[in-house]
């Protein structure tokens, strides 16, 4: 049985499975075969689980008995970023410090996917503790971009994005703290959604910056992202920041939107490459032709979103990552006393970028600098959120390119932290304000002999994922 994986989406697969064109087991075998062929080059998966066919068999039985009543995700092969816990399985956040750690419980998003009958193929590569924008900083080695293996897939969810782009799964879960779902989705030519802060429970997601972190789906189409989002979202007693979305599953009030383009996009702070801007302008023209209204919006403080992010995120990370000390789990490096046990374990276990951010976090929180950095950053964060909410009084959705560039060459930004950070300049705004945002493929540009994907990003007010799904689906059609 030969299945053309490149043609499949979650909804199409669902129809095939219900019609009996193929079984979940046959589908899963096709994916395993394709992964075996491609993963040694791409390194998107760090582990393929050994029980996937048993999971597939269970899903087949569910579909056979429940038919249309089974969940829309029943039998969907998925990949999970290496920082989301699946009980009994290894989870290492791409870090040496969690070597051999096995999760002792399921993340809520995982429990929901299990309930829906998804088939977990394996765990996908990432920058260590999700700190990076290129997936080069993993203890498992870098992931390559399926469109050009000399280039980065983006990050930190480079593994989950590359998995979907290489037909290694129908969908994956990533996590997005400053753009880590959307930027790799854009580099790999797939769809990536960062939900409203609190829409998806963070329980069982290894924390980086708790006030920004969100789990989000990476899929081939906007419709598929919506299906996964509907399955994993909702209030969870285990995450007190989670909330029920009131607009989920409801239709937006209108189908012709007022679209805002932030004027900072054309400023010197945003180093957009020429053909990226050209591609963006073409996309805007297409949206106008469909009857949407386009307006420029002033958001004077949004240009400070990235520096604000690089204060609050390390501050929260340095607190969250204090738990990795060689006492309760993971790596243990013995020193001459308890202090050295901690310091040696963390010195050996954490890679250079994680160490850098933890020191930066300690710095901005330390007495004497707290007011100048952390407190100031929180005030500016509030001001930025206010800026965005004011803009949303006049527009339904704010649109930008997802990233200022297409996928960059591996190693290019590794020695210059600030250059690496800048690739998140357009995505980080949604995290700073807690807004939902989606990256949708918007065409390609040439770099050398490679045709590289670009993404367009739509950002909506809190809990208005439905607006993103509506305009995202329309954009996919007009882009064809």
């Amino acid at each position, binding site marked *: 049985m030969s299945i053309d994986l490149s043609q499949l989406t979650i909804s199409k697969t669902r129809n095939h499975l219900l019609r009996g064109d193929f079984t979940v087991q046959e589908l899963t075998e096709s994916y395993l075969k394709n992964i075996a062929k491609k993963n040694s080059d791409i390194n998107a998966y760090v582990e393929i689980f050994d029980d996937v066919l048993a999971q597939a068999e269970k899903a087949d039985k569910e579909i056979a008995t429940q038919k249309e009543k089974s969940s829309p995700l029943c039998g969907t092969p998925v990949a999970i970023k290496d920082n989301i816990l699946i009980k009994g399985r290894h989870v290492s956040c791409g870090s040496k410090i969690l070597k051999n*750690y*096995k999760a*002792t419980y399921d993340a809520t998003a995982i429990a929901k996917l299990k309930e829906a009958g998804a088939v977990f193929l394996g765990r996908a590569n990432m920058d260590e503790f999700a700190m990076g924008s290129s997936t080069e900083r993993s203890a498992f080695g870098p992931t390559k971009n399926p469109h050009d293996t000399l280039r980065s897939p983006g990050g930190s969810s480079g593994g989950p994005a590359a998995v979907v782009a290489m037909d290694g799964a129908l969908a994956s879960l990533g996590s997005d703290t400053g753009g880590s779902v959307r930027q790799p989705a854009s580099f790999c030519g797939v769809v990536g959604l960062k939900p409203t802060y609190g829409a998806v429970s963070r329980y069982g997601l290894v924390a980086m910056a708790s006030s920004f972190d969100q789990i989000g789906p990476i899929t081939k189409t906007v419709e598929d992202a919506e299906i996964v989002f509907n399955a994993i979202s909702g209030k969870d*007693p285990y995450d*007190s*920041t989670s909330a029920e979305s009131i607009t989920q599953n409801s239709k937006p009030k209108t189908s012709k939107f007022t679209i805002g383009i932030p004027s900072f996009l054309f400023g010197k702070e945003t180093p957009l490459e020429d053909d990226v801007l050209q591609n963006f302008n073409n996309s805007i023209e297409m949206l106008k032709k469909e009857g949407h209204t386009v307006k420029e919006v002033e958001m004077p*403080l949004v240009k*400070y979103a990235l*520096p*604000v992010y*690089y*204060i609050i995120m390390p501050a929260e990370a*340095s607190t969250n990552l*204090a738990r990795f*000390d*060689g*006492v*309760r*789990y*993971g*790596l*243990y490096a013995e020193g001459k*006393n*308890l*202090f*050295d*046990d*901690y*310091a*040696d374990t*963390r*010195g*050996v276990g*954490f890679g*250079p970028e994680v*160490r*850098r951010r*933890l*020191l*930066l*976090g*300690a*710095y*901005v929180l*330390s007495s004497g600098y707290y007011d*100048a*950095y952390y*407190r*100031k*950053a929180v*005030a*500016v964060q*509030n*001001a930025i*959120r*206010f800026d965005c909410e004011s803009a949303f009084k006049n527009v339904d959705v704010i649109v930008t390119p997802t990233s200022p560039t297409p996928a960059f060459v591996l190693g290019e930004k590794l020695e*210059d*932290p*600030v250059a690496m*950070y800048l690739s998140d300049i357009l995505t980080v705004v949604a995290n700073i304000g807690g807004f939902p945002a989606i990256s949708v493929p918007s065409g390609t540009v040439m770099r050398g002999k490679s045709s590289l994907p670009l993404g367009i990003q739509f950002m909506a007010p809190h809990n208005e994922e439905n607006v993103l799904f509506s305009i995202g689906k329309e954009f996919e059609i007009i882009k064809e």
Partner: protein
Amino acid sequence: MDKKELQKLATLARIAVSSDELQTLQKDMEGVLQYISQIQEVSAGHHETKNGFSLQNVMREDKDSHESGAYTKELLAEAPQKKDGYIQVKKIISA
């Protein structure tokens, strides 16, 4: 930021750092600090005093507790050093 200050941060963060690494870290940190310092240009005084997005604590109801020891075995299995059902660490207070 000088090396002494960096070393102090490393101690606070409980991270062993070699003297070679201090050199690179110093350069990297300076670049990052310069970048993030641009927020000092912003006058956000209004938002410092009037927080329009005030946060509130959400408490879980204190009920449905699990039986004592229900997860001990699984959790302890992950600890690198253990003894008689406890996590083992080095002595902190000397006699």
